[in-house]
């Protein structure tokens, strides 16, 4: 019987009721009294010098309150970057200024130049129409390799080149890796592109700035995954507002996928302008604006080499990656191709020698930063593709080749040559599971069936690993993070025993309001309905770092457990007093404190009441009240892993790829709510299939964004995708967090792209096709077939 409450149960999500009835409170649903609206005039060229901005006609337009330009932001801080990478020569990365509104130059299509604030959005837009912005267009750099050539136009005149950094990892291994590759029995080489994506949460970004002159206090409502991070970055680095005067609220947020982690110029603008005009200022992004102002994802160009010995053991991996930073450094951009990517290049394998080189490059495109998986999908894609290619070259079974090189269960904890230590795992178990749930044994029969219909059927397998639960603060500090990465929670027990948990994690679809109470309910033995989760408001929660990198439960959940443990420890003292027993003899189960070996008991609610009505209470030893806060800083990352299987049918006449089936066998450690975990995996797989087959963010050589709306950027729709078979019964619990959980938010997006492309290449293998770049659109597949014929 599945459990019906507590850890391991799948209660219906409580947040759903408001979402299903239209009562969700998203940022755009908020309207402040007397609010104004801002419309941003954005650059329509990729690179240019601003000669003149004439606002005089626009200022006379009806409803215009004030027009801001870059000049209004002189002396105000720029949008900061939260991570400094040190290059392989020991030098810090090149870090350009990032003004809130363009100063002197525009550097990508969408760069904000002028902000028109008016009584209504339509009036702001109408006024923008008559604004005159005179720009001299400059040559733009779009291609990364071109951008690094001598004499290429510079995105930032004050930097020495367009190279942000040249990172080597592990630099000391460089020569040994070169040597191993030179002498190996077999080397498989693959050049590939990890396509640029746009995260596209369905809710566009929104920001509302408010200023209360009577108290000199600011409030920012924003669609953020981490309101405290925004408060810190914007308050300390851009606007100089101390924390106690700045409240940041992220109410219901309609999806994030990474792109709502970052601090954006529009947030700073609305907060700044609210004071300047002493009225609330609201900005709601249109989808077209989102395409040119939300940070993009991926965009790596990579060459990977895998060296094997004569027995097909992996000897070495060497990779060369160009990573697009776009025109400015978004909040966590520098960390994505480095620490979130290079450290995962061991995959699930015992490869002893690894060297990763990454050149991060400025181009005249929208900034690129973390998108679901962030660096780990790029690592996984290269590795799982090159292993497949190697298996084909060597004529061995791709599953057997992987199994042969897996880190084995008795090798954990396993220190990889790329500086991380995997705590647990059992990769053969997930591989066994995928063979079963994807019915791999039946593939040849299905392939024959497809062939009868003139279709080419392919099977693709991938086995990913990722690092989640970012991260030990002292470690990331050494690696260049300008923030800590702990999480916080306050467990506030009310007098009658109900509980509010204030968590620094933020839910934007993940279901924290349902899953987090399951943990507390299990610990105390009370009903989940007695527990509420409060999140997303810096005025209500302790300083927290928010939700990304599949960290909510592993880090935020752990903080909550620590705080609840403190609460329980204190409650036991109170119970001991009430029961006239020794504290060590008190046990808590099913919402009752009992004295071990006796029938004496007191209910949870009586103890909590005593804490707040301390008539019969050990006041000399114990403070009244029952509320505890904990900050949890993880000792290590967590390492979810899993085996994915994809079957596709390719129509050789049209090049169209259909995903016939998709299965995932993940090891997430312990599971709190299986229903939510399934849903997270489904969503991740859909985004991964989207990347592999449909989605592509494309610029032309002048820097015009060619895929700037849903007409050109192909979002996966219901009829593009199959049902998924997902399993998470293989569980090697994390050894270093109290729940034994690993995180499940990104897995689907990490494991699926290589599985899909391996399947497409398998289907096309009779043509001798060994690689196809993402997205494998009908045009690309058809062309590949024609070229191979």
């Amino acid at each position, binding site marked *: 019987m599945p459990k019906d409450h507590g850890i391991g149960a799948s209660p*219906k*999500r409580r*947040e*759903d*009721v*408001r*979402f*299903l*009835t*239209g*009562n*969700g409170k*998203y940022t*755009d*649903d908020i309207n402040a009294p007397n609010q104004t609206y801002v419309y941003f005039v954005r650059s329509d060229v990729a690179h240019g010098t601003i000669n003149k901005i004439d606002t005089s006609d626009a200022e006379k337009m009806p409803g215009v309150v004030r027009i801001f330009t870059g000049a209004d932001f002189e002396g105000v801080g720029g949008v900061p970057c939260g991570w400094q990478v040190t290059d392989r020569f020991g030098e810090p990365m090149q870090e350009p200024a990032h003004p809130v509104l363009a100063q002197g130059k525009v550097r990508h299509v969408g760069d904000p130049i002028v902000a028109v604030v008016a009584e209504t959005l*339509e009036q702001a837009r109408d006024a923008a129409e008559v604004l005159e912005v005179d720009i001299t267009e400059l040559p733009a750099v779009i291609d990364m390799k071109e951008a690094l050539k001598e004499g290429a136009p510079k995105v930032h005149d004050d930097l020495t080149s367009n190279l942000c950094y040249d990172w080597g990892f592990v630099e000391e291994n460089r020569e040994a890796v070169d040597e191993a590759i030179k002498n190996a029995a077999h080397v498989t080489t693959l050049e590939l592109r990890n396509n640029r994506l746009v995260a*596209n*949460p*369905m*809710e*566009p970004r929104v920001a509302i700035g408010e200023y209360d002159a009577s108290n000199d206090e600011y409030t920012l409502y924003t669609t953020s995954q981490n309101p405290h991070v925004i408060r810190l970055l914007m308050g300390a680095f851009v606007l100089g507002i101390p924390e106690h005067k700045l409240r940041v609220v992220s109410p*219901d*947020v*309609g*999806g994030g*996928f990474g792109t709502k982690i970052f601090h954006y110029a529009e947030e700073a603008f609305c907060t700044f302008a609210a004071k300047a005009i002493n009225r609330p200022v609201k900005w*709601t992004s*249109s*989808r*077209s604006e989102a395409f040119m102002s939300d940070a993009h994802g991926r965009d790596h160009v990579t060459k990977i080499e895998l060296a094997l010995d004569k027995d097909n053991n992996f000897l070495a991996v060497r990779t060369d990656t160009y990573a697009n930073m776009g025109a400015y450094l978004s909040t966590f951009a520098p960390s994505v191709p480095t620490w979130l990517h290079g450290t995962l290049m061991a995959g699930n394998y015992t490869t002893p020698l690894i060297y990763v080189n990454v050149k991060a490059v400025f181009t005249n495109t929208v900034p690129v930063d973390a998108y679901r998986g962030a660096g780990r999908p790029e690592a996984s894609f290269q590795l799982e593709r090159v292993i497949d290619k190697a298996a084909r070259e060597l004529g061995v079974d791709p599953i057997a080749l992987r199994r042969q090189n897996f880190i084995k269960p008795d090798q954990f904890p396993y220190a990889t040559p790329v500086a991380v230590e995997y705590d647990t795992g059992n990769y053969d178990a997930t591989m066994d599971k995928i063979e079963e749930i994807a019915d791999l044994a039946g593939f040849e029969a299905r392939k024959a069936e497809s062939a009868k219909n003139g279709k080419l059927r392919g099977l693709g397998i991938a086995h990913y690993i990722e690092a989640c639960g970012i991260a030990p603060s002292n470690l990331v500090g050494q690696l260049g993070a300008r923030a800590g990465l702990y999480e916080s929670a306050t467990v506030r027990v009310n007098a009658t025993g109900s509980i509010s948990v204030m968590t620094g994690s933020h839910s*934007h*679809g*993940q*279901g924290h309001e349902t899953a987090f109470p399951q943990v507390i309910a299990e610990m105390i033995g009370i009903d989940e309905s007695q527990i509420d989760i409060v999140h997303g408001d810096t005025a209500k929660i302790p300083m927290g770092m928010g939700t990304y990198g599949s960290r909510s439960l592993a880090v935020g959940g752990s903080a909550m457990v620590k705080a609840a443990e403190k609460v329980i420890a204190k409650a036991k003292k109170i119970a001991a007093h009430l029961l006239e027993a020794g504290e060590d003899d008190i046990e808590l189960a099913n919402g009752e404190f009992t004295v071990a070996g006796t029938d004496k008991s007191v209910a949870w609610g009586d103890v909590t009441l005593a804490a707040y009505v301390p008539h019969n209470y050990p006041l000399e030893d114990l403070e009244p009240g029952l509320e505890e806060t904990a900050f949890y800083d993880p000792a290590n990352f967590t390492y979810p892993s899993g085996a994915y299987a994809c079957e596709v049918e390719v129509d050789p006449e049209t090049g169209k790829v259909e995903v016939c089936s998709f299965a995932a066998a993940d090891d997430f450690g312990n599971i709190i709510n299986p*229903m*939510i975990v*399934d*849903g997270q995996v*489904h*969503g*991740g*797989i*859909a*985004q991964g299939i989207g990347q592999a087959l449909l989605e592509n963010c494309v610029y032309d050589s002048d820097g015009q964004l060619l895929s700037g*709306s*849903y*007409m050109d950027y192909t*979002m*996966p*729709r*219901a*009829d593009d*995708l199959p*049902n*998924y078979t997902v399993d998470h019964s293989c569980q090697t619990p994390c050894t270093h967090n109290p729940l034994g959980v690993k995180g499940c938010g990104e897995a*689907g997006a990490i494991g699926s792209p290589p599985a899909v492309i391996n399947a497409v290449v398998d289907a096309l293998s009779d043509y001798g096709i060994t690689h196809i770049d993402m997205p494998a659109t009908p045009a690309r597949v058809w062309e590949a077939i024609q070229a191979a014929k």
Partner: protein
Amino acid sequence: MPSVTMTVNGRAVTGEVEGRTLLSQFLRDDLKLTGTHIGCDTSQCGACTVHVNGAAVKGCTMLALEADGAEVKTIEGMANPDGSLGVIQAAFQEHHGLQCGFCTPGMVMAAADLLAGNANPTEAEIRKHLEGNICRCTGYHNIVKSVQAAAAQLG
């Protein structure tokens, strides 16, 4: 400004709108029915789906003035009279057919439209019918399951 009158969720409403005001804007900004969401500006995401005279319509493809005299139903009108979730809504909750909830009102309205015309749709028909509604969170698997469950219950 011209005025417009319509019935929304059974209630007669009147408002003054600009000629360019979209039905979706009128519902959100004038009537404060913020359950209807705006997810794009090219009429391609379906977050704004409502019913106009019984048929599903993307609220951003229609001017408010065009809905003059119409019967409009939004997500706020989909619960049972006692406030409990309607069959389709309940099926979405039961089968985890939503995560962030942003696409959800449009999905529910589109699903209701499908089931009104086809009591027993196949999986392919469901996927085809929902093709105008983008969900970035769920991968659609559980949305399809929710609609199937609702169909079974309504059938």
